[in-house]
């Protein structure tokens, strides 16, 4: 995008935007020109928000969730069960679990899942940090809540081998049929899982 007709400031914005996931050069140009032409205060608000994001947020030194204070409000909450750790791939998964208001333990965010083909290995995830938490103290249960994808399953299986030596109980989120779904439309893989995880009544 080295066009003399476009000022370098704009080209730089376009190039930066297209580094974002899901945004190619075309979308990046469209966004850049929208910001350029649109109400100037939008660009400034965006710049301000980005600035704050970088300045004010960091990873919680215990659970590695994104936070403005360290430790994060969840890790600092005495009402929570600190002996129960739920392991998730991304902060967004943590948010979803929080929305249920049914979980009262603490979390550990891995920041990804094992994916050798994309060059993501155990040392790129917060696995050592999780082990350190187990070694440090009174953890009675680790709940593995990785995504039900093949990467998520692989990550969970790997964590099981790593965490087995510790005394904590290892559990996994239940899987199967979605609430409000229709048996008729469930795919074979989901149904197989649901059959395997059937419950005694």
């Amino acid at each position: 995008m080295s066009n003399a007709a476009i000022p370098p400031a704009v080209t730089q914005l376009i190039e930066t935007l297209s580094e974002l996931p899901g945004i190619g050069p075309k979308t990046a140009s469209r966004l850049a020109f929208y910001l350029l032409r649109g109400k100037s205060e939008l660009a400034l608000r965006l710049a301000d928000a980005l600035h704050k994001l970088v300045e004010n947020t960091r990873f919680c030194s215990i659970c590695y969730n994104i936070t403005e204070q360290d430790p994060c409000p969840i890790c600092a909450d005495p009402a929570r069960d600190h002996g129960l750790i739920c392991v998730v791939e991304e902060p967004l998964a943590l948010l979803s679990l929080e929305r249920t208001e049914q979980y009262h333990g603490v979390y550990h965010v891995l920041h990804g899942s094992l994916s050798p083909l994309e060059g993501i290995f155990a040392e790129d995830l917060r696995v050592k940090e999780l082990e350190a938490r187990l070694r440090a103290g009174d953890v009675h249960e680790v709940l593995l809540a990785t995504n039900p994808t093949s990467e998520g399953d692989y990550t969970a299986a790997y964590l099981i081998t790593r965490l087995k030596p510790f005394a904590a109980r290892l559990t996994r989120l239940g899987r199967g049929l979605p609430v409000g779904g229709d048996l008729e439309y469930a795919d074979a893989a989901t149904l197989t899982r649901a059959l395997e995880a059937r419950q005694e009544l």
Partner: protein
Amino acid sequence: MYIRNLSLRHFRTYARLEIDFPAAPILLLGANAQGKTSLLEAIAYLALGRSPLTNTDQQLIHWSAATSGMPFAQVQAEVQKQQHTEVLEIVLQRSQLSNGNTRLDKRIRVNQKAVRRAALAGHLNVVVFMPGDVALVGGPPSARRRNLDNLLSQVHPEYITALSEYQRTISRRNALLRHLGERRGDMAQLDPLEEQLAQTGVMISLYRRRALAVLSSHADIFHQEMTGGAAWLRLAYRPNFDSLKPPALDYQLGLLPEVAQSPVDVDALRQAYREMFLRRRQEELRRGVTLTGPHRDEIRFLSEEVDLGTYGSRGEQRTAILALRLAELRWLQQQTGEAPVLLLDEVLAELDRERRKYLLGLVNQVEQTILATTDVEMFPEAFRRKTRQFEVAGGIITPVK
């Protein structure tokens, strides 16, 4: 079963095709490069979920559709079974992504319902015989594995699922091996992948063993008939990894299909598989590839103790491949209770008079055979009278009066 109706849009040389076929031997007549092979390929595509001729679905889209604003291809067939009719459809749609890359979507439907590729198994069965097939006997082992995979995939959806899972895990494990070999890291990352490979690998190997045992005994019968009892034929399964040794078993399996059906200690096999990974780990780390498993299986054609792949004459290899195709037909028939559709592309030219007669005699045993040829004179008059003939020219098909 037979194909009642075939409809193509932007598939290979066909801009648009809509044609009804009878339950009879069908002769497709036409010069080269007019679309005869593409038509057979389209039918095989619906049976296998992939083309027998290419790994690149992209190539299947008609060139003009590829450059116009409608980059898609559609293949649809109505299949008449003994009791009912089924409609199979595959649509390939190419779209331009905003980041400049293109993306190819493949949608498979069975009776209007969107399904995964594995669910295509069992709806349409074909035996495809093409001119290049003789190279299977002496060519690379991957071609023989692929041929067997295509056959098993037509009947067993669980085989398709296991195979794709296996292949995905192999590429993952290879990437991990390279990483660990170069930069070190936690070896325990290999464990879940090896467990997965032990599960799917043992299953793939068992399916192959059982199918080959049956195929081998069928092929032997056809081979003896074609050679006037002069030569037996055996399809020998040489699994890359096998704890069912001694090797004598391999020989017995070919002769006694019931041996192949006997129960196998799957847990012991998996255990042996895991141990093999441990034994070869250093070598695999050094080379960055997985050296053990069914992705390295070998299948050999043996006749009278001679390996036809290495020592067979061209004529012997042709007879062997013909025997294999006929064995596949019989196997599919036994597995599904219906005769598959036979797709023969220009194969008579390669066979002598006796074998031609033998092959054409089998056409009576199925409901529908589709034969493509440049030279109608190759077929005996009596045979031609039984067929319905179509002229194929420039991607257009017209019935011959």
